């Protein structure tokens, strides 16, 4: 059985198993299976590393009749990052979401929903079929909405409903584009669409799909649902929602713009996408600056950090001829997706530890907690280094690559936004760090197991390591990179 099939199906198999198991067997099975999926993700990355992209025609039916799956370097890297984050979240959740802490309902519900979310992510990362991606994204959205609603408070339910409305509207817009694509070309396969005979309806199809995916990726001005949803979920769920879920819809955007229909990328459209990203970086940063709760700061920071991803559109492309900086911009944006995933998951997990320790995530209540829980304070600071883009973190590599390609392309405004966004991130993350490391001993903190405290630390350390060992992921991301990203859109 290939690593690709294991990565694709093991989360599903585990989710179904968990539903049948008695409560006490649940956590050990999820942890064991998570370890297996991490191993399979590693095996898949190795297979891609040595032999190039791995493909599979599901059911033995090649497109346009069947559905093709393909693991290129980008998919393998995202699968690996997701597996690490999922594994870490499972380790933290075994302490945080036990039935005697949060009740039987949450203690049950989190595990199958987390596994279904995982299955949906891997399905989306691998699929090459526009309609299959629709089904995958719907699974992702339903599991994500349910995770937001998990805590059961009125605010969480309202946040979940608002998220649901955006997600459903996004799905339908995307579906409208899929209908037009199949109606015009008789295929849903990304590879076959790339060699299609162009039709007049293609621009409309791409526009509809893009609008739908932007709503799901929470790009400005579609970001309003994200902060209450991500801040309202239990912390391990927030970690998944913020670190992983937006990456799936972003990846589909990349597949559409760089692989399926690169011929439609006009300069103006690329500019609009990046400009929305730039506004998101600034606006998300400003809003993060005025929040009073740690989880809301971290959630608004996601709005800002997702904005950087969209600089890939004008920078990895341009006037259609080969550009030396395209590879740097492509890899920079992907580094941003990976390092943000690791660092953001670490941050939400530290927020979960603080809430468990003192029952609050208000900045005023966090004062001095780094003395009581030094490991957690250190993890938060490390993750902050990545989000600020300071060396030697993965975030630094990402922003460095994006900035050098912005200068090389002569598009210095993006470089300005990158610098300004870094300053804003430093400012909004300084506030919680200053509170945590304040000279005041916390007395009322409940003890937190060291194994739990170690989990976000490992994730944060990985986000730094991504920068220190950037050569390996850099080369992995080049494997199967679409030609338009090498030559410019």
């Amino acid at each position, binding site marked *: 059985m290939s690593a690709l099939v294991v990565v694709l199906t093991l989360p599903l198999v585990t989710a179904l198993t968990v539903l049948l198991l008695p409560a006490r067997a649940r956590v050990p099975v999820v942890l064991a299976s998570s370890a297996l999926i991490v191993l399979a993700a590693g095996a898949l990355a190795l297979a891609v590393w040595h032999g190039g992209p791995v493909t599979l025609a599901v059911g033995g039916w090649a497109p346009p009749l069947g559905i093709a799956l393909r693991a290129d370097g980008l998919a393998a890297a995202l699968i690996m990052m997701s597996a690490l984050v999922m594994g870490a979240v499972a380790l933290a959740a075994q302490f945080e979401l036990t039935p005697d802490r949060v009740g039987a309902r949450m203690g049950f519900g989190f595990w199958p929903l987390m596994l279904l979310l995982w299955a949906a992510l891997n399905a989306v990362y691998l699929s090459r079929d526009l309609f299959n991606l629709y089904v995958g994204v719907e699974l992702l959205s339903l599991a994500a909405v349910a995770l937001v609603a998990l805590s059961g408070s009125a605010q969480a339910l309202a946040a979940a*409903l608002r998220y649901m409305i955006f997600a*459903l509207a996004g799905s339908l817009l995307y579906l409208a584009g899929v209908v037009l694509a199949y109606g015009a070309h008789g295929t849903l396969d990304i590879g076959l669409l790339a060699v299609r005979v162009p039709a007049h309806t293609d621009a409309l199809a791409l526009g509809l799909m893009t609008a739908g995916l932007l709503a799901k990726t929470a790009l400005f001005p579609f970001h309003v649902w994200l902060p209450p949803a991500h801040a309202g979920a239990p912390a391990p769920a927030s970690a998944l929602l913020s670190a992983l879920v937006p990456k799936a819809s972003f990846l589909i955007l990349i597949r559409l713009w760089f692989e399926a229909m690169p011929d439609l990328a006009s300069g103006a459209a690329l500019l609009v996408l990046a400009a929305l990203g730039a506004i998101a970086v600034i606006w998300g940063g400003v809003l993060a600056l005025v929040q009073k709760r740690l989880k809301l700061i971290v959630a608004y920071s996601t709005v800002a950090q997702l904005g950087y991803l969209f600089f890939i559109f004008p920078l990895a492309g341009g006037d259609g001829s080969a550009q030396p900086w395209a590879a740097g911009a492509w890899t920079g944006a992907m580094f941003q997706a990976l390092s943000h995933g690791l660092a953001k998951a670490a941050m939400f997990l530290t927020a979960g530890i603080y809430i468990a320790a003192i029952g609050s995530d208000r900045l005023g209540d966090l004062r001095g907690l780094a003395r009581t829980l030094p490991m957690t304070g250190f993890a938060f600071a490390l993750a902050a280094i990545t989000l600020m883009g300071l060396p030697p973190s993965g975030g630094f590599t990402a922003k460095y690559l994006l900035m050098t390609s912005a200068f090389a392309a002569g598009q210095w405004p993006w470089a300005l936004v990158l610098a300004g966004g870094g300053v804003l991130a430093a400012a909004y993350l300084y506030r919680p760090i200053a509170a945590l490391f304040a000279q005041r001993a916390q007395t009322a903190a409940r003890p937190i197991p060291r194994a739990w405290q170690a989990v976000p630390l490992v994730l944060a350390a990985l986000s730094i390591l991504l920068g220190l060992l950037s050569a390996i992921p850099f080369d992995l991301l080049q494997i199967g990179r679409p030609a338009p990203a090498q030559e410019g859109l």
Partner: protein
Amino acid sequence: MSLTVFALTGAALVGLGVYGLLALPHLLRRIMCFNLIGSGLFLFFGAAGARGAAVDAIPQALIITGIVVALSASALAVGLVVALARRTGHAALPDEDRAP
């Protein structure tokens, strides 16, 4: 000619649904509008798939999948509306126009 009638009906249904989704605060109505948009798209898709010499079975299969997915989403959305109303007494989102 009949296909054009069905396709344009589908397009009009999508438009109606979009209008209702944006204009109506009651959440059950919004869920119905989502379903109008979805079924309008499917009607358009079905008409498009019937244009060739032989009727294409793939759109039909995709539409059946889409109908089941739409039901799943509707069920979760309806559940959320009822749960929200039980806690707040309203079937509309808090900071928008409330259904009295």
